[in-house]
C-alpha cells in the first residue's frame, strides 16, 4: 500500500510539473473563453452590418415594396438603362443591383427579375428579396381568387397537439432531448477524459519502456502496483486539471460577460436548446412564460443526486477499464507510432456510444438499441448516463437494467484489468518487436 502511494505521488507530480501540462491547464480556459467571446462578438458584428442594394425598378407593380430593414437598405435608380445602372451600382459600391423589368403583367415581370452582384449573394439578402416577390405574387393570386388577405391570415395557422401523462400532468415537448442532453454532457465528459488521460497513461508507460527504467522499478514493486499507481496518479492529475478548467473558465466567463456586456443567454437559447445545463439555466432566466416554467420544473425534477452519484460510479469504472487497456497497449509497443492499430478499437466503442446516444437515446430513451448499449459494458458509462436523467423506476430506466449494467461493468472491469495486467507484465520487458494481436494473445498464457 505504501509503495502504491509512492507511485501515485510520483506519477501525479511528474504529470503536474510537466511544462506542457501546466501550459495546457492555464491556457485552455483562456482559449475557450476567448473563443466564446469571439463568437459572441462576431455574431453581434454580423447582425449590425447593413448592405445597400441598388434597385432599378421599371415596373409599376413594386413601387412601394422595397422598404429598408436593419440589415438591407435600398437605393432607387430611376430613368437609367440597365447597362448604366449596373455600372453606377458597381461604382457606388452597393452590394448589388436588383433589376425589375417592365412587362405586361405581374407574373411576367417577376419572371424577368435579376439580382446582379459581384459574388454570389449571401443567403439572408436572397431570402429577404425572394420573400418580397413571394408576398406580392401571393397577394395578387389571392385577389384573383377573391380571397381577402385578412381571410388568408385567418386560414393560415399552425397546429400543436397537447400532450400529457396518464396522471394528467402536462408534458413538455422536447424534454426527452433536454434530459438526454444533460446525461449526454456527462457521458461526453467521460469520453473526453478517457481519451485524453488514457493517452497520458499510455505515453507514460511507453516512456518507462524507452528509458528502460522499467526493470529497475519492477524489481521493487509488482507490475500490477505500478500500473494501478500510474492510472490513479494520472487520473488525479486529470481531475486537478479539470477542476482548474471548470473553476477558471466560469470565473473568466463571468468577468467577460460583466465587462463586455455580451448576452450569453441569447447565444445558447436557440439551436443549443437544452443541450447542456447552461442552456437550462439560461432558459430559467430568459423568461417566465408558462412553457419556460414547465421546462424549469422538469429540469428540477431530474434526479440530480442519482445522476451525479451514478456519474461518479460510471466514470470511475469506465475510466479504469479503458485506461488499463491503454496501459496494456503502452506496454505492448516500443514507441507511440506503433499504437495506432490498437488505439482504433478502443476509440470505436466510445464514438459508437456517443453517436448511438445522440441518435437513439434522444428519440427514444427506452428503445431496444438504447437499452442494449446501456447494458454493454464498453458503452454503458456513456449511454446509461444519457438515459438516467429520466430517473430510475416508473417512466425511467427499469431498476433491473440499472443494476445489470453496473454488475456487468464491474465484472468487465475485473476481467479487463486482469487481462491488461497480464499483457502489461509481459509487454514491459519486451523490446524490439512490433507485436501483433496473436502475440498479445500468447502473452496471456505466459
Amino acid at each position, binding site marked *: 500500500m505504501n509503495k502504491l502511494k509512492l507511485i501515485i505521488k510520483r506519477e501525479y507530480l511528474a504529470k503536474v510539473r*510537466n511544462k506542457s501540462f501546466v501550459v495546457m491547464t492555464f491556457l485552455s480556459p483562456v482559449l475557450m473563453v476567448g473563443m466564446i467571446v469571439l463568437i459572441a462578438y462576431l455574431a453581434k458584428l454580423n447582425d449590425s452590418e447593413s448592405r445597400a442594394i441598388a434597385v432599378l425598378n421599371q415596373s409599376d407593380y413594386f413601387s412601394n415594396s422595397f422598404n429598408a430593414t436593419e440589415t438591407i437598405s435600398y437605393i432607387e435608380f430611376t430613368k437609367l438603362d440597365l447597362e448604366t445602372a449596373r455600372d453606377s451600382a458597381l461604382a457606388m459600391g452597393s452590394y448589388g443591383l436588383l433589376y425589375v423589368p417592365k412587362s405586361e403583367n405581374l407574373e411576367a415581370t417577376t419572371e424577368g427579375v435579376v439580382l446582379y452582384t459581384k459574388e454570389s449573394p449571401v443567403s439572408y439578402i436572397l431570402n429577404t428579396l425572394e420573400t418580397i416577390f413571394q408576398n406580392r405574387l401571393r397577394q395578387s393570386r389571392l385577389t384573383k381568387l377573391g380571397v381577402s388577405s385578412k381571410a388568408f391570415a385567418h386560414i393560415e395557422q399552425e397546429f400543436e397537439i397537447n400532450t400529457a401523462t396518464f396522471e394528467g400532468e402536462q408534458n413538455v415537448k422536447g424534454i426527452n432531448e433536454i434530459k438526454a442532453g444533460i446525461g449526454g454532457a456527462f457521458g461526453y465528459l467521460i469520453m473526453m477524459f478517457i481519451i485524453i488521460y488514457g493517452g497520458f497513461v499510455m505515453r507514460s508507460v511507453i*516512456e518507462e519502456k524507452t*528509458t528502460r*527504467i522499467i*526493470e*529497475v*522499478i519492477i*524489481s521493487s514493486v509488482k507490475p500490477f502496483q505500478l500500473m494501478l499507481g500510474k492510472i490513479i496518479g494520472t487520473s488525479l492529475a486529470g481531475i486537478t486539471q479539470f477542476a482548474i478548467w471548470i473553476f477558471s473558465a466560469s470565473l473568466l466567463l463571468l468577468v467577460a460577460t460583466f465587462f463586455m456586456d455580451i448576452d450569453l443567454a441569447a447565444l445558447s437559447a436557440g439551436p443549443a436548446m437544452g443541450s447542456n445545463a447552461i442552456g437550462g439555466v439560461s432558459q430559467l432566466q430568459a423568461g417566465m412564460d408558462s412553457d419556460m416554467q414547465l421546462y424549469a420544473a422538469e429540469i428540477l425534477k431530474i434526479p440530480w443526486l442519482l445522476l451525479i452519484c451514478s456519474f461518479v460510479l460510471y466514470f470511475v469504472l469506465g475510466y479504469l477499464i479503458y485506461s488499463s487497456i491503454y496501459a496494456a497497449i503502452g506496454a505492448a509497443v516500443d514507441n507511440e507510432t506503433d499504437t495506432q492499430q490498437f488505439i482504433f478499437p478502443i476509440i470505436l466503442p466510445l464514438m459508437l456510444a456517443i453517436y448511438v446516444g445522440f441518435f437513439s437515446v434522444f428519440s427514444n430513451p427506452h428503445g431496444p438499441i438504447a437499452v442494449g448499449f446501456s447494458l454493454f459494458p464498453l458503452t454503458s458509462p456513456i449511454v446509461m448516463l444519457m438515459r438516467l436523467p429520466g430517473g430510475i423506476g416508473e417512466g425511467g430506466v427499469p431498476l433491473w437494467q440499472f443494476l445489470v449494467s453496473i454488475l456487468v461493468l464491474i465484472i468487465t472491469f475485473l476481467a479487463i484489468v486482469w487481462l491488461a495486467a497480464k499483457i502489461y507484465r509481459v509487454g514491459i520487458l519486451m523490446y524490439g518487436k512490433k507485436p501483433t494481436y496473436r502475440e498479445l494473445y500468447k502473452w496471456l498464457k505466459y
Partner: protein
Amino acid sequence: MNHILVAENVSKKFGEHTALSNISLEIPKNCIYGLLGPNGAGKTTLIRIINQITHPDTGAVYFNGKPLGPEHIATIGYLPEERGLYKSMKVGEQALYLAQLKGLSKTEAKKRLKYWFERLEIGDWWNKKIQELSKGMAQKIQFIVTVLHEPELLIFDEPFSGFDPINANRIKDEILELKERGTSIIFSTHRMESVEELCEYIALLHKSEKILDGKLSDIKKAYKNNIFNVGLKLPMEKNGTLASLQEKYTITDQEYNEKENQLNFTMQLPDEHTTAALDLLKAKGNINHFNEVIPSANDIFIQTVNAKINE
C-alpha cells in the same frame, strides 16, 4: 545455511520457447558468483526469477533457506542490463523515490545518498535532471540506487557497460568492497577478464541449460590438460632435439630463433609426468621457461559452448 540462494530444478517456458530447463544452482554466501553464457542462454530469465519479476513454471528458489517471497524484495538489489532513469526527473528526487520503493525511509535514504554521492564524487547534481547528465554519471547514480538499501544479495547484469575504464575500475573496487562487507553478489557478464578478476564461483548457461558450475579454481583445474609452454636454449642445432622430443611427446606451436638459438614450443604430457619431462629437457639444453597452460575463463567458456554445439 551456507547458501544465500538455492535454485532447485527451475524451468521456465515462454509459449513454445524454453528459457530455462531444470536449472539447479547453489550460490554460497559472501562470494561473487559469475553467471555466464552466450546471448539467449537464459541468464536474464533466471535473474528475473530471482527478482520475482517472473515466476518459474516448475521448481523452487530458496533465499537464505526459505522459499523466495515478497519479503525478500527489499533484501535484493538488482542492476539490470537494460537500465535507465526517468529523464525529466531530478537526480535527488529520483534516487529518493527508488530508495523508498525498496523500503527505506525518506530520512535514512537521504543520509545514505549523501554519503554515496560524496564517495563517488557526484557532487551537486542533486537538483539537476538526468537528461543533463553524462551517461557515465547516470550509470553511477544507477549503481548507487542499486546498493543503497544495503541488500544481502546484489545482482549485477553487465555492471561495467557504459563506464570509461577509470570509472569501471572504480565500480569494480566498490563491488569488491561490498563483498568484503559481507554481501553476496551475482555477476552476469560476457566480459571474461572481469570474471577472472572477481568471481570465485561460476555457472555457465547455454541454451536454457546449465552446462557447468562450481568454484572457478576447481573448474580451471579440471580444464587444464597437462599442457606446458617450454623455452629451451640449445647448445647446438635444433633438428635432432625436436625430433627426439617428438618421439616421446606431442609437440605443437614450435618456433626456433636462430640468432638466440632458442626453441619455443608447447608440449602435451601424460599425467604426473613433469619431473620426467624436466629431466629430459634438462639434458637437451638450458630451460628458460616451463609453465603449465591454465585455461582462462574465456577458453573454458568457448570450449564448453563449442563442445555443446558439436554434440
